[in-house]
């Protein structure tokens, strides 16, 4: 295997990024146009990177499977974006944002990366404001902030409940400006199906034009994957329906190490599952926990309507267990506490898999109008889905898969173990360790895309000699043949079970055995169930239609086939990490009062899995995490 070199620069933490920027090689402005770069994905990370790289003068080809680059799932982020601006004078600083993120991630992220993220966080807000993003404002015209998900300072910037949408539209508009100038070649409705590696370097991709079905190749000097997370391996998640692991999984099979795949985030405030027809889960922004109080009946089996249960027969369990953070306890902790309450038989709603999020006290305190001003669109969304009025009765919420901290392993320059393959945003194994704090995903996506990658990719391009390689190179033919063969195979099974039925079954295995609580026995079962399901998929799946047309069944089949392979890696990673940390809770590793128990002596590392061929167990590489600045402590939010 290749030893993992994180390439973290020397020097004091606060000086590393500046020093590194100076030490990296630059590409001469006149030479930038000689470097073609492929960017796959147009969410916050991809759109901001494609626009910025193009502004710098690189030749950018950008790809997305949506019909428009504006539709990537970043658009659905509701709550906000963190930045260490300290506009509220409440004691925030770059160091505090860094510290909160490292601690929130349960000490499983790289210090230098997280510090850099906090450093550039302020620049992101400046950049977005300059683009005309309509952030919330105070009457005096200054930017408004709120506190969000587990933070004790108000550092979250927002645009109503549509922050992700507005930030993405800002990046999309910057990208469209470059497309309009003819500086970015945009390929919408085009899905990356494989990576092309020539002489050990990423030199291109093979894609399928989703309208015509044509398999095509594109060559470049570097490939940037900004293809998002893999939450849909659980079938039901808050991710958009088309989010998938294919791009990163294909890169893994071409040699890119996959980091910490078992670090998945379960978000505490989603609308509970209502029936087996359900296609996805809807998140209710975490900001609701600023004013809503989470409770269940104190007595097991108490089925009275919520308003009939007197105060002293309610259990405000987050306030009880975590008095200093209360309802704002971090996501992993809040989710597990809700699961525990339901496991005890105190869940609410028709399925008993739900807890109340109650606004009665907040409405009594500030009035219904103030609550409507803060959360009106979220309350409307809730009512539309459940047919219940949350101003009158408490919301019902339950945890759901929301985000994946794991992803392709990258060094400090955001480059994977394949030279030339860069990975940004949720697609990389990221700065969030084992748990991401609220309002930090948007920050990381834009930090990577606007500020980090555009600086670091120049070092690779300037220091690498590029042999002339275009799509006529035999490596492209070989990968195209692989892609065509896979497509033919999917279409050729002609069985009788639909793709979705396999996806649903896989999701059930993952949720039950690799969800909020994991055990050795459960994971071992999952590792037997998944290959069996995969075998059945390739024997009995039905994919109607042909490959030479717009064929949504075929698109979905390819994605689910990859999830069926990838799920095994998630479970393998979860099985090997016998500690509990962040979103990864191993029942065997908990404190006397049921909190996650980390094992720093054995697991203070990034698990970077390396593909070793079909039918062979992947190789586990470890990048030790060294903490020079923060002191490793058991997380406590009591």
């Amino acid at each position, binding site marked *: 295997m290749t030893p993992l070199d994180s390439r973290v620069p020397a020097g004091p933490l606060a000086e590393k990024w500046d020093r590194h920027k100076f030490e990296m090689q630059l590409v001469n402005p006149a030479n930038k146009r000689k470097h073609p770069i492929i960017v796959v994905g147009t969410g916050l990370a991809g759109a901001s990177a494609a*626009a*910025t790289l193009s*502004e710098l003068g690189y030749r950018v080809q950008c790809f997305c499977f949506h019909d*428009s*680059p*504006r*539709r*990537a*799932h970043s*658009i659905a982020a509701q709550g906000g974006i963190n930045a260490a601006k300290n506009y509220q004078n409440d004691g925030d600083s770059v160091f505090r944002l860094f510290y909160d993120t490292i601690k929130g991630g349960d000490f499983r992220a790289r210090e230098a990366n997280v510090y850099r993220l906090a450093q550039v966080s302020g*620049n992101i*807000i*400046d*950049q*977005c*404001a*300059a*683009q*005309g993003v*309509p*952030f919330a*404002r105070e*009457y005096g*015209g*200054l930017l408004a902030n709120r506190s969000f998900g587990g933070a004790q300072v108000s550092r979250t910037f927002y*645009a109503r409940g*549509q922050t992700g*949408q*507005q930030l993405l539209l800002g990046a*999309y*508009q*910057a990208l*469209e*400006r470059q*497309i*309009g100038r003819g500086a970015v070649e945009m390929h919408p409705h085009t899905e990356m199906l494989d990576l092309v590696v020539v002489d050990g370097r990423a030199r291109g991709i093979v894609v399928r034009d989703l*309208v015509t079905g044509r398999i095509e190749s594109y060559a470049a000097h570097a490939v940037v994957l900004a293809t998002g997370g893999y939450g849909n391996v659980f079938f039901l998640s808050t991710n*958009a*329906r*088309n989010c998938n692991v294919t791009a990163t999984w294909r890169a893994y099979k071409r040699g890119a190490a996959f980091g910490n795949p078992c670090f998945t985030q379960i978000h505490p405030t989603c609308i509970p599952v209502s*029936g087996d*027809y*359900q*296609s996805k889960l*809807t998140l209710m922004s975490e900001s609701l926990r600023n004013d809503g109080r989470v409770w269940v009946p104190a007595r097991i089996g108490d089925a009275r309507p919520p308003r009939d249960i007197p105060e002293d027969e309610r259990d405000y369990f987050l306030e009880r267990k975590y008095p200093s953070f209360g309802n704002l306890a971090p996501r992993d902790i809040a989710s597990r506490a809700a699961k525990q309450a339901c496991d005890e038989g105190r869940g609410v709603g028709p399925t008993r898999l739900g807890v109340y999020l109650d606004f009665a006290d907040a409405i009594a305190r500030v009035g219904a109008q103030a609550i409507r001003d803060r959360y009106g669109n979220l309350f409307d*969304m809730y009512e*539309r*889905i459940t*047919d219940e009025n949350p101003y009158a009765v408490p919301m019902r919420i339950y945890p759901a898969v929301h985000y994946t901290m794991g992803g392709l392993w990258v060094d400090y320059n955001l480059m994977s173990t394949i030279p030339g393959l860069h990975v940004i945003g949720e697609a990389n194994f990221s700065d969030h360790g084992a748990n991401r704090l609220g309002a930090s995903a948007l920050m990381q996506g834009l930090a990577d895309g*606007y*500020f980090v990658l555009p600086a670091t990719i120049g070092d690779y391009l300037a220091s690498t000699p590029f042999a002339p390689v275009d799509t006529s190179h035999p490596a492209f033919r070989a990968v195209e043949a692989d892609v065509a063969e896979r497509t033919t195979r999917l279409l050729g099974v002609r069985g009788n*079970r*639909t*793709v*979705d039925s396999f996806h649903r079954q896989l999701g059930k295995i993952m949720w039950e055995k690799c969800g909020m609580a994991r055990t050795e026995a459960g994971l071992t079962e999952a590792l037997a169930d998944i290959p069996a399901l995969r075998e059945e998929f390739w024997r009995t799946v*039905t994919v*109607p239609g042909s490959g030479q*047309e*717009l064929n949504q*069944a075929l698109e979905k089949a390819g994605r689910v086939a990859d999830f069926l392979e990838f799920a095994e890696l998630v479970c393998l990673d979860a099985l090997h990490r016998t500690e509990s940390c962040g979103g990864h809770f191993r029942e065997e590793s908990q404190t006397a009062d049921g909190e996650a128990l980390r094992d720093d002596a054995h697991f203070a590392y990034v698990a970077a899995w390396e593909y070793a061929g079909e039918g062979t167990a992947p190789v586990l590489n470890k990048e030790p995490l060294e903490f020079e600045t923060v002191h490793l402590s058991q997380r406590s939010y009591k």
Partner: protein
Amino acid sequence: MDVTLRVWRQRGPSDPGGIVEYPATGVSPDASFLEMLDLVNEGLMARGEPPIAFAHDCREGICGACSLMIDGIAHGPMAGAATCQVHMRSFSDGATITIEPWRAAAFPVLKDLIVDRSALDRIIAAGGFVTAATGGAQDANAVLVPKEAADRAMDAAACIGCGACVAACPNASASLFTAAKVSHLGLMPQGQPERSRRVIRMVAQMDAEGFGDCTLFGECQDACPKEISIDVIARMHRDHMRAVWFGGEERAETGPG
């Protein structure tokens, strides 16, 4: 509940297409409209038949992918909602429901219920942005934005680019879409330097794409899942007129009219 679907099926851009009837039985009233279509598609695929192609992604009303004309109403019977936010409880048991794609010359059908909306992206590319390359921004609080301006800008910026306004308009005009972006950026101080240039270019692109003119029917604002008001169109017309008569270099390039 049981409903009968009359669905537009069209194999490709050059196929004439037509309505095909499908039963949808045993549907939960709590299922979303798209989940009902999933169910029908599952049945079709289990029989080896090609599913009904329709655009969708986030299924929470924000990505703007879904785009169905349901009984002649863009995004169906629920005001202020995208197709994916409509639930079956909005229909009566036994109903017959007709589902068609957006109809507009500038939105050619790709397959079944999926249309090509890239014309909207080209309108944005023509000028729907603030020229602010990464890196040069001053501190975000250095430019004050009155709360009212930010709020009104946000009302317009809420557009999800679904194209319902075009589908609902008797003229297939993209005025609401274009005006929403013109207004969002025109209301922000950051949008002022390019205000004239932006509106002239975006309107010219809208015309070039083959969208119709606005004659203030107001159908667009009723269809808009984000309930964007046609006030933005009045604003765009005012900006456009001002830009054409007093807009400097852009006026010389494009001229009035």
